[in-house]
């Protein structure tokens, strides 16, 4: 019984490290004003390694994405990504997951 409890605890700790690790990036982007255009941004972010849970808030001009642990988004990378999509990157905030 003790052995089973220990295995269960270790499994929980392992799962937590898998699912909770990483960073959520919240980026302010100018020029986003229509749903059809926003799709290009989503598609480009999906191609970034480790990216998941992408959301685009048109009203606030915010684009958010989760990046897996061990990966990172840089300002230069995002400037180019949004420029290629036709928009202007302004700033970035990071939140640990």
């Amino acid at each position, binding site marked *: 019984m003790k052995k089973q409890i220990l295995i269960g605890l270790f499994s929980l700790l392992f799962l937590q490290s898998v699912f909770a690790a990483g960073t959520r990036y919240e980026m*302010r982007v*100018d*020029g*986003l*004003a*229509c*749903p*059809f*255009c*926003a*799709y*290009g*941004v*989503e*598609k*480009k972010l999906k191609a970034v390694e480790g990216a998941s849970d992408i*959301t*685009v*808030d*048109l*009203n606030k*001009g915010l684009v958010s994405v989760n990046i897996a642990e061990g990966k990172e988004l840089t300002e230069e990378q995002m400037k180019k990504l949004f*420029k*290629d*999509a*036709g*928009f*202007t990157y302004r700033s970035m905030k990071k939140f640990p997951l």
Partner: protein
Amino acid sequence: MKDRPEYFWNNLGIAGLVMTVLLWSTASTAAPITFNTALPVAQGEFLVREQLIVNQSGDDPSAANRDRTASAAVTAMGYGINHRWTVFGILPYRDIDMDLKIAGQKINRSNRGLGDVSVFTRYTAYQNNQPGQTFRIAPFAGVKAPTGKNDARDNLGALPPPVQLGTGSWDYFAGVVTTFQTLRYQVDAQASYRVNNEANDFAAGTIARLDASLQYRLWRTSAEGGIPDYLFGVLEANLVRQEKNSVNGSNDPNSNGTRLFLGPGIQYVTKRWIAETAVQIPVVQNLNGTALENGYIVRAGVRANF
């Protein structure tokens, strides 16, 4: 070409207008229904637009009692080369039907098939992005290649140019389009010019055109923190001035002129697709001689991101 009765030439204003309409109402992002926009196509991305167009002309001032319906399914594709350059390709499938009277006898002439292919490029010369809005200016230029059949015949002989699928000529066009887009509304305006060259002893008149579009958001889905769907009410205006056609080197006095269309429409926009429809109603038709008047132009189409 000389076996074609003169009244056929009078329709060519309509033919030129139809071709112009087909070629300049191209694929793009959320945008006007009857012409282009300056909004971006993301680098390396495709979008496709399919638009059905029915252009009806009648109310013939001549004794020929002409009545012409030109329908087209226009497929257009856009590709973003980079953040400034976009290329577009357009291929219409056309179905043309014309009734008229010759010596009191009603006859019909018709044709269907692929029309002329157009390609053009657009360059975003200026853009100013602000929170929730963008302003852009983009010149464009392109060419229409004579890929459509232009020597079709029926049992009465060679079909006249208004019933041919292609013009047989290489034609060139250029212009500039500007867009101001916010979360609530969008305004687009375009000025363009088109040179139609001679083929088979015929040249359609050059075309100068001014277009404007207002798209106002009437409704949106609730998508807290995400991408909602938008429903836009659309009102567009198209001022089209076409010079007289040239037939065997002489101007046709019964061809073309100036037309002003007003086009109310509606557009439903999601992040993956757009569905839209509009009716262009001629409110001014200052035409030369007995040139055939437009009745209406109906458009319905979809666009999709890939």
